């Protein structure tokens, strides 16, 4: 059914008129031209499509547009502030926590939510929190190290 869905996207009010059954992933990538959010499996297994909705990590390939009315959505493109990249983004660069980079936006968004909920997680908690995000290149060890660094306040993050 065509309806109007209003939400805040990367800090800006956004209005979309479309079929309210559509999944957020495709609306982001096609209608809104935000291609940083990736398709990896379309079924909730991989986390490549992870974005924040009201601060929580959600899989945009599973998120119907209608559920977003009045919500706050942040994608990888909205993570930088005032031209400064987010400490997690910086830590991923510093640690070389990426190879092909395809899983990276989803990893960073998931980690952002993780650190918002638990600013100082144990290594174990980081592993658990990231468990459902897949990386085929095998950047895992460095991804954990990058998140640990940021959680310890390195790279300017709280």
């Amino acid at each position, binding site marked *: 059914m065509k309806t109007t869905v209003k939400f805040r996207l990367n800090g800006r009010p956004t209005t979309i008129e479309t079929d309210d059954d559509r999944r957020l992933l495709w609306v982001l990538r096609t209608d809104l031209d935000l291609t940083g959010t990736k398709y990896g499996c379309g079924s909730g297994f991989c986390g490549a499509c992870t974005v924040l909705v009201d601060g929580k990590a959600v899989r945009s390939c599973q998120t119907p547009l209608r559920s977003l009315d009045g919500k706050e959505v942040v*994608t990888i493109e909205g993570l930088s502030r005032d031209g400064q990249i987010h400490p997690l983004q910086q830590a*991923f660069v510093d640690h070389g926590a990426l190879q092909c980079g395809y899983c990276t936006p989803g990893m960073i968004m998931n980690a952002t939510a993780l650190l918002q909920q638990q600013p100082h997680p144990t290594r174990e908690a980081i592993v658990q929190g990231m468990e459902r995000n*897949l990386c085929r290149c095998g950047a895992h060890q*460095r991804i954990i190290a990058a998140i640990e660094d940021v959680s310890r306040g390195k790279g300017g993050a709280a």
Partner: protein
Amino acid sequence: MTTNKSGLDRRSFCRLVGGGIVVFVSVGPSALLSQERRRTYPEDLNAYLRIDENGLVTIFSGKIEMGQGVMTSQAQMAADELGVGLDSIRMVLGDTDVCPWDAGTWGSLTTRVFGPALRAAAAEARTVLTQLGAKQLGVAKDQVVVANGVVSVADDPSRKVTYGELAKGKQVSRLVDEKAVLRSVKEFKVMGLSPKRIDGLDKVTGHAKYAGDIRLPGMLYARILRPPAMGAKLKSADTSAAKSLPGVTVVEQGDLVAVLHAQPDAAAEGIGRVKAEWDVPKPEVDDTSISGYLLRKAPQPRVRSTKGDVAAARAAAGRVFESTYETPYHAHAPMEPHTAIAEFKDGKMTIWSSTQSPFGTRDVVAKELALDPKNVRVITPYVGGGFGGKGSGRQSAEAARLAQITGKPVQVAFTRPEEFFYDTFDPASIIKIASAVDKDGKITLWDYDTYYAGDRGTEIFYEIPNSAIRTYGSWGGGTPPLFPVGPWRAPGANMNIFAGESQVDIMAAAAGVDPLEFRLRNTPDPRMRSVLQAAAKQFGWKAAPGPSGQGRAVACGVDAGTYVALMASVKVDKASGKVTVDRVVCAQDMGIVVNPDGARMQMEGCVTMGLGYVFSEELKFKGAEILDHNFGTYRIPHFSQVPRIETVLVKNDEVLPQGGGEPGIVCMGAVMANAVFDATGARLFRLPMTPERVLAALKKGEKAASS
């Protein structure tokens, strides 16, 4: 007509990129020949680079970036030879209109084979700039020095001229066809260091463009009707329900049935509405019966090597160890599925494709659409993982065909189930080994038959007087046509080394010799000995014959010119059969290391990816129907499985840079099987080592012990 020649001749290239100093290198066909022996390229150029009036250097390379870090390492090589900083380098990768011909990015060849050509081009550019600079400064060319993109008089550094000034208003084009003088290791300023990846910032901000991120005005997203099994024949397709969706375009041309729409999700909905009937071939075999099937269908063997007298050694041996090892089909499963977008305009087809082989893609598309290859351009944006699976894939040809039919730009992006269906799988394989060892713990016999794994990883690096190696079929061909198979990260070596290094462990245990000591006793090769010793030092190896109960193990091998030794420690839960890997040490001698941190990333990636084929990955199928459609059933490594990984680079500047993207993975099967044995005394001969198989092996061990 297809052609293997470079997409562009030198004159048109210069016209296209504009003025400045352009250097081409043709280091003779040998380098390219070693990429693919069947072809010859008398007039092909191996590398180009251009210096513009701002002093910026653009490198044109047919090698693509799929995560392995060659964008950075190629830039480093060029920067050092040219005498400029890394920040003056721009990379143009995998664009068939402006990059030199290349077979494809695989086989850990970029640094090994393409590297010297690129370095030669850059070194020649430095020579040209030195000459121009000396002339401009009015001194002899041995009186100038170059650094940071500046030519200056050695005795009077205030007299200087920049590369940009030298290139300004010029149209210098140089061809290098002899061996250029490359910098020695001592002169390296950028090589040997680990600058941050130059693709890092793009990738963490979401700005990095992959093929699926290219947007063109008026583009359509296509979904194509797919068969339920390989070889299924379409009997009928009813597209009327799809056609009733607003905004769809339906294409029906023979076997090609596609629904296109300006929104990908609407195209998906449309294809879901197509009612199709198929003739599906009757399944003859599935994943449980595959080994017997493959053995029955095996082609005649090729004898790869023989030495001494195998029959006599067999007769003389007190005990002959005979084992059969099995591995299943594996999917590449890159996180980015195969994707392409094609635009057909004024007779020219342009395709942005996620491919490891832009030129191969160009030729395939040209052939399928009967276009002149000159009128097909393939551009390769960032590739989201390849691992050998992204050859000249069908998605590019499909997108091109649909673009031609509809007159609109068309994207074809595989869904995850399509990705699992159209993969060129790592072939299932069987390896049979008979071997023997004498009373001094020296191997006397190695009689080796490998089915479908090919010969990579079969080379013997132990001193064995009597040996024979035979291969039956390979990943490159000779496999029964169930579904396509192809190269998978270090193709064949994973299986061959799993088998070979498990077998060596079996003999070490039977001889009552510590497995590290056993290997050292049998290999005189100094490079192999040094990686083994380096791994042992980092690991803190405690010598004891297996099974020692420590749950630690070693395995070693040679791949892509690189020597590698792995040590690992594991815990085995005897109640559930679950194996937990605590720690892996990976030591490599890969010759000169261009980018140490980049090399370590690849080693860690190899170890991590390897956990998948060792413990969980096994393609399920019934006949030519693939039963795994997504990551829910085909389980690739997760965070919780990843052990502490420590990497050791064994310094060896005597050897040119060798491969780095694959060697680290080849020993994973053996080191883990050996570690499970060391922990429990149970030996697994089949991968993956699922909890059920570990439990079964434990039971068998108990039975053997009690009987």
